[in-house]
């Protein structure tokens, strides 16, 4: 049962004969319907005939059920409870049960009065000049506040946490840098060869002048070629003599003349 859906004025729709009301959607729940039925009795809510009310409610529900099998649980629970209440009120010979019934009836009347009050309050609120409906405020506020942001809000803790954040990020991700060159460069080979020349007055295999730390075959081949280039360079400048006794044989090297090397 849609509780929210509105019919314009339930009171008018429900005319004198309550059994004709089949549209329960106009009522926001069983209590709402009960209150409406009670109002139809046009008596003090405290003095309504609960019995008559029960009869009417059950009649409405019964009628509605003929047409609508999907009546919500709320309405049926209320019907069941009202049936129980009716049986209590109709059994006056049983003292405790009668009292029980009267208490329940009193409670029901009280709840109806409460709801009546809320209906009145809602209606009263409805009569008030409603903002943006009946009366309108200034369309747009003028913003006269000026925000002074000249001062700094800083704290040591902020500084420290910023430092920690920077450090941890610095460790986590580092800006891209190309890997440093690992190959033994001609320049390095030249330097190394030149240093070694003093201690190698006699013919020495070129491979002796290779740096030792390379396990990578590519790196060691590169070192070999750099060293070879360096030896050619030194030969060209007259610092060393080179010889190779057979094709693909070992290349040997010896310094030309110690004083000349020192001069350079």
């Amino acid at each position, binding site marked *: 049962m849609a509780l929210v859906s509105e019919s314009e004025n339930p009171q008018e729709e429900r005319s004198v004969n309550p059994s004709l009301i089949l549209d329960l959607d106009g009522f926001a729940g*069983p209590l709402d319907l009960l209150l409406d039925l009670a109002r139809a009795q046009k*008596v003090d809510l405290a003095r309504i005939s609960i019995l008559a009310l029960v009869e009417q409610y059950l009649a409405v529900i019964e009628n509605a059920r003929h047409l609508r099998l999907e009546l919500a649980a709320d309405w049926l629970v209320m019907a069941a409870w009202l049936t129980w209440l009716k049986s209590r009120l109709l059994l006056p010979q049983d003292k405790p049960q009668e009292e029980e019934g009267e208490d329940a009836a009193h409670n*029901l009347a*009280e709840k109806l*009065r409460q709801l009546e009050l809320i209906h*009145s309050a809602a209606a009263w609120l409805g009569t008030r000049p409603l903002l943006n409906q009946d009366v*309108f405020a200034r369309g747009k506020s003028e913003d006269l506040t000026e925000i002074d942001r000249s001062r700094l809000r800083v704290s040591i803790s902020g500084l420290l946490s910023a430092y920690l954040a920077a450090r941890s990020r610095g460790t986590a991700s580092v800006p891209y840098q190309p890997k440093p060159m690992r190959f033994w460069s001609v320049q390095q080979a030249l330097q190394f060869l030149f240093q070694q020349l003093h201690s190698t007055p006699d013919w020495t295999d070129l491979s002796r002048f290779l740096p030792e730390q390379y396990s990578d075959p590519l790196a060691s081949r590169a070192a070999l070629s750099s060293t070879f280039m360096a030896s050619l360079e030194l030969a060209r400048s007259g610092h060393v003599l080179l010889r190779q006794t057979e094709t693909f044989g070992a290349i040997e090297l010896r310094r030309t003349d110690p004083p000349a090397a020192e001069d350079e």
Partner: protein
Amino acid sequence: MTERPYAERLIEAAIFASREPVKLRSLANLAPEDTDIEATIAALRARYDGSGVELVDVGGGFMFRTAPDLAMALRKIIEVPRRLPRVVMETLAIIAYHQPVTRNEIEQVRGASLGQATLDALLQADLVTPCGHKETPGRPTLWATTAHFLAAFSLRSLQDLPKREDLLLDAATAPPPSEGEGAENRDLEEEQNIGTDAEVKPLTADP
């Protein structure tokens, strides 16, 4: 028109600049020290009397608003929100009278469950707000009306809501309830009615 007194102009401008009610205290802080605020506001109100805008005292402060009789014409050029449906108005009334109140208590009074759409409408219109929890099992949220509720319904304060006996007098046939009335009693009654016992339970909408 001749220049109005400085304090009056200042107060006028301060109220005029804001869409929300401006508290008397804010106005007092703003005006020169020896200003008779009440008299100034009275003068201001008189000056706007009969114009298209009026100075009203609502929601705990002062604000300018258009005169009610112009509403029809103004609605043509100003977009107005939809009126609140009856269910929403009733729920609002329950919250206004019973606040702070839990959802379950609202449902008890109405004898029907409180739809999400209803609550959403009230929240969206800034008419109700959660205000803490009831210290009962489950700690249900308590609901109350907002400051905007007062301004929206042109109320100075919650005291402006009609007393229950006045409401019941209006309700055609019903004579005033026998017991003494007042805000204090409201809570009491509520407890009696809401305090769940066997008789009341069947009225509750089933979850």
